[in-house]
Every structure is written in structure tokens, then in C-alpha cells.
């Protein structure tokens, strides 16, 4: 390495990393001119710079124990929490992996630095995050278990997610189109739940979206900036709020202005729609590899956000983009509030439809054969086919849609090519795309004189049980999805039902309804189902869905030791009953496998509802 050359490389590098996207390209062009090897050298260095910061390369001094901010040591006990590992440090404090020794579950323990704890404003932010997040109960929002103070340390215990932030992920991966849609839909599901309770996140960006490694499930983080909507407050209060908000968002965390909505950039009062704008920016970035609004300086970026239309997604993207996705993103990025998506639900619906088209095509490519299966594209012409309207008619309509798609793709095949990587089908042909299935078995423990008698045994299907038998269910699904299991006690027809939540439970699966594919779930996790004294059938409802079920999500609040799973809110149990009644129209197919002592239930559509009647004498 020549000193002169090195001086040149370092000068260009240092200026270039301050710029982004086009500005950087232009700068490199002007500095390196025709010297391609110089440009190449600088670009490689920039790439290494990005990787090095993403991976925290040599961020910690070499000394083993030298992370000077580390407050807790591995193996140390903080109240009921046993510290296992230091995971990292951020602006607010440090994060540890710990075990809650009371329940034996893993938690992420966020410990506030003393500096923050003494800072009233930051402390407020921390408490706000805890309050906001804990009031939300949705699988795509990080579950907050506890917020408290032990030994003068303020901490927040949350669900522990093994994964990466979307930002980290984007640095090393190119997301496929279906993946982009899945991530977006989940962000919107989280926002829908937050908006439902009148909470606006205000800081949607890839850094705040976590992807769980195991199954790519999205968890929305950082409700630190979130606030209840300000509909009721006076104009004066609004102004103040807006101003503070802008300062916090722009000042506290660098670089976040790229995701700001026009109203946020102006410090105006915010509502739910600001989050939809930011989600639009995130989708744009996932597709195009760059944010839609980006200037040389913050002020330039602000002007872009307020005044300019972004480069169209199809032009910005290195690969062809479905017209429908382009339309969705444009609608999310409408500068006028009334032209934008009005609810997260609406936006999610459009994305889901597009996602399904892709599924249909993938399915079609599988059935048409390998020559056509290489590449294809979801075009707006496919969207012109019949749209799916209801669960019951879905299967039939998919047939039609599939046919339409076969013909269309045959026609457009030679015209368009997409390089969106789509995973080739592997293994045996999967079951039809709109089918859900569950496999379950029943474990029975006999009792004599109140003592367990003989070894537990396994059944494929129900039998007429003795009153003192105790029962467990073992459930799994070949696909990941949301599982809800409820016990409906015996009751007279006219009387309202009483429900006990068996799954999710506070002692297993991090209180989440989401189970992984082929995950074996034992229900109940630690105890057994016991029969009531009165005669009659105990009904166990199994509900399984590709998506979280809004009507059933609230039951998770009852799945704890205090409530013993009993839903004692009669309006909620009415809603649950209503849901179960309306979803039992199409009977699932039931197949028993005597050899494996298992029952497999399957049904077309997105939601599977199956009831097991446990009768005793």
C-alpha cells in the first residue's frame, strides 16, 4: 500500500461515508473520475465499514471483562432473575439474557444505566415504553413481562427474541418479495393492535423491527416514543407535544428523519397515519435497497419529504416490482393525510391479497412444471382476476384464480422476467395453500384413590372417561401459526358458556399463541385437565390460524396463575363463544391414525376450528 494512494483513499472514504445513495455515487464519480480501481477500493472499504459497524467489529476493548458499562456479571442474581449473558448496550442502558427463576423462562432484561435513571426525561421515556408495550397484547409486539426496581437498578423484563433487527438483516440479506410482504403485514398487524388502543408508535424504522431467527416472526420494538393519540387535547398542548416530539425524534436518535412523515417533519400533531407512512418508507427500502427520501443533509431530506415525490418504486428497484406493490407504497406515502391509507388494517388487507397472488403463482409454477417454475411475476393483470372475499368460498375461487393465472403467466412469461428470488419447492408437494391442519393425541392418567394409577397412556381419539381420569393434549401443526385452545365447561344450552384458556399459557411458549411448524405443544403445559363433578361433556376447542385472531388474542390476558385461565369477563366470553359458533360451519376432515395414536384434523381456509368432546361417567 502506497502512502500517497492511501491518503487519497482515506480522504474519499471519509467524505463518502457521510453521504448516502445517489449523493455518494455522484461524489465517488466526481472524485475518482476514470480511475476505476480507486473507486473500487473505496467502495470495498465502505462496504467493510458498513459490515464492521453492523457486526460491532472490535467495538469492545480486548479485555475480557472490560466492557466498562457492564453492571451485572454472568451468573449474578438480580431479584428473581439469573443473569446468563450480556447481550449488548444501547443508549438507554444494557440488555442481558436472563432466566426468570420463578417461571424458568428466558427473558431479555433491559437495565437502565444510572445516568438514565437520574435523568428525569429519559426515565419517563423508559417508563412510557414499559407502560405502552405492556398494555398491548399482540404476537408481533414484544411482550413486556415486568417493569421494576431491584437493588436500585431499574429494569424492564421482556420476551427474549433470538434474532436480528430488520436493519441488521437488510445489511446481509436480500429479502425476497414474499418475505418483504410477510414482514410488512406483520408490522401492520402490530400497528393495528396498537392503533386499536389509540397508541401511535411514531418511530417505525428497520432498527425497531426485530426478526426472530427461528421463524422470521416480526416483533415491533421500542414504544419509547409512542404516545396515545392526542385527539382530546387542546391546541396549545398539541403544539407543545408536537414540538417536543420532533426534537426527541430528530435529536435523540440520529438518522431517523428518513422515516418521518410530512406531518412529523413539521412538528404537527400526529395520528395513526404517521405510522403507515413510515411503514411505507420501510417497504420501499426493503424493495429498492434505499429509502425514498434522502438528501445530502437533514434539511435536504426534510424538503424531499415535504415537497418531492420519490423516484417510483419500479425505477428505484433493481428488479421488477409488481404494479400492485407500487400502488400500495405510493398510497402509504401520500403526503395528504386523506389520500393515504387510513388504517393499518386496510393497508394490511391489500398486502395480504398481493401475498396470496404470489402464493397462487408459486403453487401454479409447481403444478405447471419445472420449465415454467424458474421465474415469474405477480402482475397487475393477475390482480384483475376474481378476488377472494370470504372464507367459505375461498377454495372454489382459488381454483378459478389459479386457472386464470396459468393462462396469464403463459402469456406474460416471454415478456417479463423477475429476479425476485423465490424459493424453489422442496420435498413432497405441499398441501393446498389455503388449508390448515393440526395433529393431536390425548394422554390419559388414571387415578385410584386420588393417586396416579399405572403409567399414562395415549389415545388417538376421545373415549368415555372415568370421572377421576386426568387428561392432556399433545398438539402440533406442520405449518407455523397461531394456536388457541379453550375449555368450555358443561352447561345448559340457554346458559352462557364458561371458558378456560388452556393455551397460550403464561408458563409456556412465552405466552404467545404463535407456534412453530412441528412444534409439539403439551396442553396444559404443567398440569392436567380435570373433570368437574357434574356429569356432561367438557369441550376442548382447538383453533388454529395462519394469522393472529383478533377476537381470541384478548384471552391471553387470562392465561395466568392468578386467573387460572378462567375468562371471568362475561362480555369477552360472549365474544369468544360468538367467534367459535360462527367458525364451525365447515366441518374439518378428521383422520385417525391408530398406529401412531394420533388424530389429524384439516380444513380449507385460513382458520381451523375443531372441538374435542371429553365425556366422563
Amino acid at each position: 500500500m502506497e502512502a500517497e494512494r492511501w491518503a487519497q483513499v482515506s480522504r474519499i472514504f471519509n467524505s463518502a461515508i457521510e453521504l448516502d445513495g445517489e449523493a455518494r455515487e455522484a461524489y465517488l464519480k466526481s472524485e475518482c473520475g476514470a480511475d476505476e480501481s480507486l473507486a473500487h477500493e473505496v467502495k470495498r472499504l465502505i462496504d467493510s465499514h458498513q459490515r464492521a459497524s453492523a457486526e460491532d467489529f472490535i467495538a469492545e476493548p480486548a479485555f475480557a471483562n472490560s466492557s466498562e458499562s457492564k453492571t451485572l456479571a454472568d451468573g449474578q442474581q438480580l431479584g428473581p432473575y439469573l443473569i446468563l449473558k450480556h447481550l449488548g448496550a444501547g443508549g438507554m442502558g444494557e440488555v442481558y439474557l436472563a432466566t426468570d427463576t420463578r417461571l424458568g423462562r428466558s427473558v431479555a432484561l433491559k437495565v437502565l444505566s444510572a445516568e438514565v435513571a437520574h435523568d428525569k426525561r429519559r426515565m419517563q421515556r423508559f417508563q412510557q415504553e414499559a407502560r405502552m408495550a405492556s398494555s398491548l397484547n399482540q404476537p408481533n409486539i414484544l411482550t413486556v413481562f415486568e417493569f421494576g426496581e431491584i437493588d436500585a437498578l431499574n429494569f424492564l423484563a421482556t420476551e427474549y427474541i433470538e434474532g436480528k433487527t430488520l436493519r441488521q438483516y437488510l445489511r446481509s440479506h436480500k429479502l425476497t418479495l414474499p418475505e418483504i410482504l410477510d414482514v410488512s403485514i406483520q408490522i401492520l398487524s402490530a400497528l393495528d393492535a396498537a392503533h386499536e388502543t389509540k397508541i401511535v408508535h411514531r418511530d417505525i424504522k428497520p432498527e425497531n423491527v426485530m426478526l426472530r431467527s427461528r421463524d422470521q416472526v416480526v416483533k415491533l420494538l421500542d414504544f419509547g416514543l409512542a404516545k396515545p393519540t392526542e385527539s382530546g387535547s387542546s391546541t396549545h398542548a398539541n403544539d407543545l407535544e408536537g414540538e417536543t416530539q420532533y426534537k426527541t425524534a430528530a435529536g435523540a436518535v440520529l438518522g431517523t428523519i428518513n422515516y418521518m412523515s410530512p406531518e412529523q417533519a413539521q412538528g404537527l400533531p400526529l395520528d395513526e397515519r404517521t405510522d403507515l407512512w413510515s411503514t411505507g418508507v420501510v417497504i420501499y427500502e426493503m424493495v429498492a435497497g434505499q429509502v425514498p427520501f434522502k438528501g445530502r443533509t437533514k434539511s435536504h431530506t426534510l424538503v424531499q419529504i415535504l415537497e418531492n415525490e420519490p423516484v417510483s418504486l419500479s425505477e428505484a428497484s433493481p428488479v421488477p416490482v409488481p404494479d400492485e406493490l407500487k400502488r400500495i407504497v405510493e398510497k402509504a406515502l401520500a403526503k395528504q393525510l386523506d389520500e393515504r391509507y387510513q388504517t393499518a388494517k386496510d393497508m394490511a388487507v391489500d398486502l395480504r391479497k398481493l401475498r396470496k397472488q404470489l402464493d397462487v403463482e408459486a403453487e401454479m409454477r409447481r403444478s405447471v412444471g419445472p420449465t415454467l417454475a424458474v421465474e415469474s411475476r405477480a402482475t397487475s393483470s393477475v390482480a384483475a382476476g376474481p378476488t377472494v372475499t370470504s372464507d367459505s368460498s375461498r377454495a372454489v375461487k382459488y381454483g378459478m384464480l389459479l386457472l386464470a393465472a396459468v393462462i396469464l403467466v403463459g402469456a406474460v412469461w416471454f415478456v417479463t422476467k423477475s429476479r425476485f428470488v423465490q424459493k424453489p419447492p422442496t420435498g413432497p408437494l405441499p398441501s393446498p395453500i389455503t388449508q390448515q391442519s393440526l395433529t393431536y393425541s390425548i394422554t390419559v392418567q388414571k387415578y385410584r384413590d386420588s393417586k396416579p394409577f399405572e403409567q399414562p397412556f395415549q389415545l388417538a381419539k376421545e373415549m368415555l372417561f372415568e370421572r377421576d381420569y386426568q387428561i392432556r393434549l399433545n398438539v402440533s401443526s406442520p405449518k407455523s401459526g397461531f394456536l388457541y385452545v379453550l375449555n368450555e365447561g358443561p352447561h345448559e344450552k340457554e346458559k352462557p358458556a364458561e371458558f378456560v384458556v388452556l393455551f397460550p399459557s403464561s408458563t409456556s411458549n412465552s405466552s404467545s399463541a404463535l407456534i412453530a411448524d412441528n412444534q409439539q405443544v403439551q396442553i396444559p403445559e404443567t398440569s392436567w385437565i380435570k373433570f368437574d363433578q357434574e356429569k356432561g361433556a367438557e369441550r376442548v376447542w382447538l383453533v388454529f390460524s395462519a394469522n393472529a385472531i383478533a377476537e381470541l388474542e384478548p384471552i391471553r390476558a387470562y392465561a395466568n396463575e392468578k386467573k387460572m385461565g378462567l375468562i371471568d369477563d362475561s362480555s369477552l366470553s360472549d365474544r369468544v363463544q360468538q367467534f367459535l359458533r360462527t367458525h364451525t360451519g365447515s366441518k374439518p376432515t378428521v383422520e385417525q391414525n391408530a398406529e401412531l395414536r394420533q388424530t389429524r384434523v384439516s380444513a380449507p381456509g385460513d382458520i381451523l376450528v375443531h372441538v374435542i368432546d371429553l365425556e366422563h361417567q
Partner: protein
Amino acid sequence: MTKPPPSKPHEITELLEQWSGGNQAALDKLYPLVYEELRRLARSYMRREPKGHTLQTTALINEAYVRLVDQHQVHWQNRSHFFAISAQIMRRILVDHARRHLHAKRGGGARKISLDEVMLVAKERSEEVLMLDEALANLARVDPRRCQVVELRYFAGLNNTQIASVLKISENTVMRDWNLARAWLYQQLSETP
């Protein structure tokens, strides 16, 4: 803790003065004295602190400085010099340690490694330390200052403000130097098969 420092503060102070004045021979004498003191301090830290206590490299060097140098006689700039050479020394201690550690792990380990030494560098970081040391030596040939920034930060645990004051450059420059050096080192390390 109460043990007196092994060398006379005057001697070290004087050597520091001479070295700052441009006398390279002074550094050769200074080096082993500071080396011994830092090693000794690191060991005693490990012994007296409860398990899992955090060892702060900067605090260690500070303590060595207070113990070794006569505060009344030394010119304040010499403190920077002291930190600069301590960072080099810490690098050597850590690299030596990492080398022995890997050697022991690969079955050459008839030699007993004392507990305090083992605790200095986490096992999994030994390789990183060695590779980095090698890459840094290459960097030093073309760009000694940026190499020093890495040394002060990675091996001596100084923060940007402290590095800025030791090297008498602005914090912004420290940040830029760090970005560049780290990117370059990352590239070197990722190219090494």
C-alpha cells in the same frame, strides 16, 4: 494494594521527560518498567476483585501512572505519552497472552497458565487479538496515527475524548480515523483465509 511501587517515581518521571524530549533510548528503559507495573497491577486486580468484576483497562493505566510517576515533577503532556506507551504495552500483554492461550488449546499446553492470565482475554477473542495485532502492524507502516487510535481504543480501552486528548487531535478526527482503520482492518481480517 499497599505494596510500594517497585521503581522510583523520579526515575520514571525523568525517563518520560527525556523521551518526550526526543530521546528514544529513554523509551527502551521506560518500557520494561511500565510493563512490569501494568502486569503486576492487572494480576492484583484479578485477585482482589470478586469474580465477575469488571476490569477497566483505563483505570488500570491510570493507577499505574499515579504509582509510577511523580505528580509534582512531571509535565502534564507526559501523561499522554504515558498512556500512549501503556496502550502499546497492554497490546503486547494481551497478544502474548492470546498466543499462549491458543498454544495451550492446541495441545502444546504442558505449560500451566495461571488463572489471572486466563482471565485477561476471553478465550474466543484470542484469535481476534492475534489477527488484529498482525493487521495493525501492517497498518502502522503506512498510517501510524490511525494504528495508534485503534491501539488506544481496543487495547487500552480509552474512549474518543481520551484518545483525542492523548493524540492532540479533535474528537471528530478520532472518529474518522477509527472508522477508516476499522473498515480497513475488517477487510484484512475477512480476507485472511
